[in-house]
């Protein structure tokens, strides 16, 4: 018997839950200029989530999936991307989308039941939110192939959940990306839950990063609540991809502090006490402690930021509520580049019967 292959999975954390440095920091983590925008982005996302949930409760938007507790993942990754890179998000990645320049108003429109929310004014090429779990990994691999074929120095970055790693699309796409040595980064937001299914019931593996071994690509594990670790890993993976080094899988370990979505009641399947305990690991507090140590943060700044975020979200909500409802005719717009004559009669029937535009969700 001979051993023909050996593998290992490494885990990285720079800041512990209290914000103490437990591993020598990478260059950027000493620089407030780099860290402050990350801190702001995480706070903004959290402010947005609180508001969005309130809007759902009052019937102003539909079902919504918050990123509570997982802000460091989207922020840490998106901040490591270049403008020309491509974001391929799932439905829980607005933290990353906002960093990319998607407007909060657009996000509200989407969750409010209006397709115009996916017509991003900012990152025109980024893919829209993907709801069918794991399918987006295939799209990211295909886009990455296009970049490589055209010789563009661009990287496709996609997100998936712990549950999503059970789906065939994830493995097939990872394998394609690996065979193609495509500029692809797959970030797994391991928030420990797939609705009610806990991580151990999702896969018998001890890590999710090790799934990369099935495709022969690098798989790393980071503390997903340590934005420094997330950003560092993302930057390495993205630049590796840009340099022709092929795909990387990053498992970011975090915890879903909220319900799965506003349609979910997590108390049905998990102990609130455990969730409470998980609050001690959340990502914002530890970065704040680090910033304070760097002398770059104080309660005054915190207060200003809180107001700034609240105002920005308020403005976005006003913008959202001010958008006139879509017209029924929109149903036949952008279905094809030009509507086939065969469909004109259906459109006319619609217009003859449809009451004016749809109301809020």
């Amino acid at each position, binding site marked *: 018997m001979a051993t023909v292959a050996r593998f290992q999975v490494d885990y990285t954390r720079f800041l512990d839950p209290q914000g103490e440095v437990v591993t020598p920091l990478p260059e950027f983590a000493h620089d407030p200029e780099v860290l402050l925008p990350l801190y702001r982005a995480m706070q903004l996302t959290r402010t947005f989530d609180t508001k969005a949930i309130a809007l759902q409760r009052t019937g102003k938007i539909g*079902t919504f999936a918050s990123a509570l507790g997982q802000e460091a993942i989207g922020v840490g990754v998106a901040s490591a991307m270049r403008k020309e890179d491509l974001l391929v998000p799932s439905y829980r990645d607005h933290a990353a989308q906002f960093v990319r320049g998607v407007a909060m108003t657009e996000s509200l429109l989407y969750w409010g*039941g209006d397709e115009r929310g996916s017509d991003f004014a900012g990152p025109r090429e980024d893919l829209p939110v993907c709801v069918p779990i794991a399918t987006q990994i295939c799209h990211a691999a295909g886009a990455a192939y296009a970049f490589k074929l055209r010789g563009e120095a661009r990287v496709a970055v996609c997100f998936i959940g712990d549950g999503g790693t*059970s789906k065939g699309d994830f493995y097939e796409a990872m394998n394609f990306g690996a065979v193609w040595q495509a500029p692809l980064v797959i970030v797994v937001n391991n928030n420990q839950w797939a*609705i009610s299914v806990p991580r151990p019931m999702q896969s018998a593996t001890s890590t999710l990063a090790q799934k990369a071994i099935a495709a022969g690509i690098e798989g790393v594990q980071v503390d997903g609540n340590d934005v420094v670790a997330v950003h560092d890993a993302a930057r390495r993976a993205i630049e590796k991809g840009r340099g022709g080094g092929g795909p990387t899988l990053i498992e970011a370990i975090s915890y879903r502090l909220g319900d799965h979505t506003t349609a979910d009641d997590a108390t049905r399947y998990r102990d609130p006490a455990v969730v409470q305990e998980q609050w001690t690991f959340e990502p914002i507090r530890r970065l704040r402690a680090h910033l304070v140590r760097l002398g770059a943060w104080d309660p005054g700044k915190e207060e200003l930021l809180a107001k700034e975020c609240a105002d920005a979200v308020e403005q976005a909500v006003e913008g959202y509520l001010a958008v006139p409802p879509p017209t029924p005719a929109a149903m036949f717009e952008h*279905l094809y580049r030009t509507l086939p004559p065969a469909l004109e009669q259906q459109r006319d*029937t619609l217009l003859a019967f449809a009451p004016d535009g749809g109301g809020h969700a």
Partner: protein
Amino acid sequence: MPELNLVEAVNRALAWEMAQDPSVVLLGEDIGVNGGVFRATVGLQQRFGAGRVIDTPLAETAIAGTAVGMAAAGLKPVAEIQFSGFIYPTIDHIINHAARLRYRTRGRLSCPLVLRSPSGGGIHAPEHHSESPEALFAHMPGLRVVVPSSPSRAYGLLLAAIRDPDPVIFLEPTRLYRLFKQEVADDGEALPLDVCFTLRSGTDVTLVSWGAALHETQAAADALAQEGVAAEIIDVATLKPLDMATILESVARTGRCVIVHEAARTSGFGAEIAANLAEQGLYSLLAPVQRVTGYDTVMPLSRLEYQYLPSVQCIVAAVRKTLEGA
């Protein structure tokens, strides 16, 4: 008799058959501890154990594929696909295996599985949660496709589906899950598959529909009654195999037919019914058949979904049109 809504009736039918038949197992995402995102399986894991009410990993292909293996090995799996928009990855196992295992082995093996999924729109759900895939499955030889339209029919038809020795696609209208309650004798009595149910008899026009659209269809019939138009209403219930005899007999009396469904029009199942009328009922038709359906557009997000769904207005207008027909 308990008053149950449709999703409660589904739950009772599952419970009844699991209690009767130890070979019945349920599998799907979040169906155990959580009782299903629509609560269709609530309480069943506590009662029958995690071995028979399986919270699976997140993978629809394997949910269908392992169900095929379970069925081939003698179990009666009832698999849940959480929302109809995620049913597409099951198609390969359903058409290539479930639907033909008996045929391929000349009856040596069989595949008595049920694939349950909520279906249709109207509850302001997120993207991909409101699809109506019945016509896709209706095209696949070897399957049964069943769509209940009331709590009592959901109860009786689901029991029949589980007891059926062949694979059944059971699509539950999400919009009806909690829309109304009905007395359902939880007595294990199944309803017959492969037959239509005539919900109301009438002499002027035959309205044919299934699932949630029957709700608007009945409202339209009520409105028409005000105008003195007596509409007969047929709930197709089992789309495949289709009980065309009942529809033909009705149209032979009324001479007019309006078919209502929520799925996209082109190649929707209404086409099959209208085609049969053109083939076998032509001489009874006093006026063109009318289809009132979802449009051939993507199911819109929630703000426009009610403009997409067949409305009472549209059905009434279609009936008026057939009545004008010579």
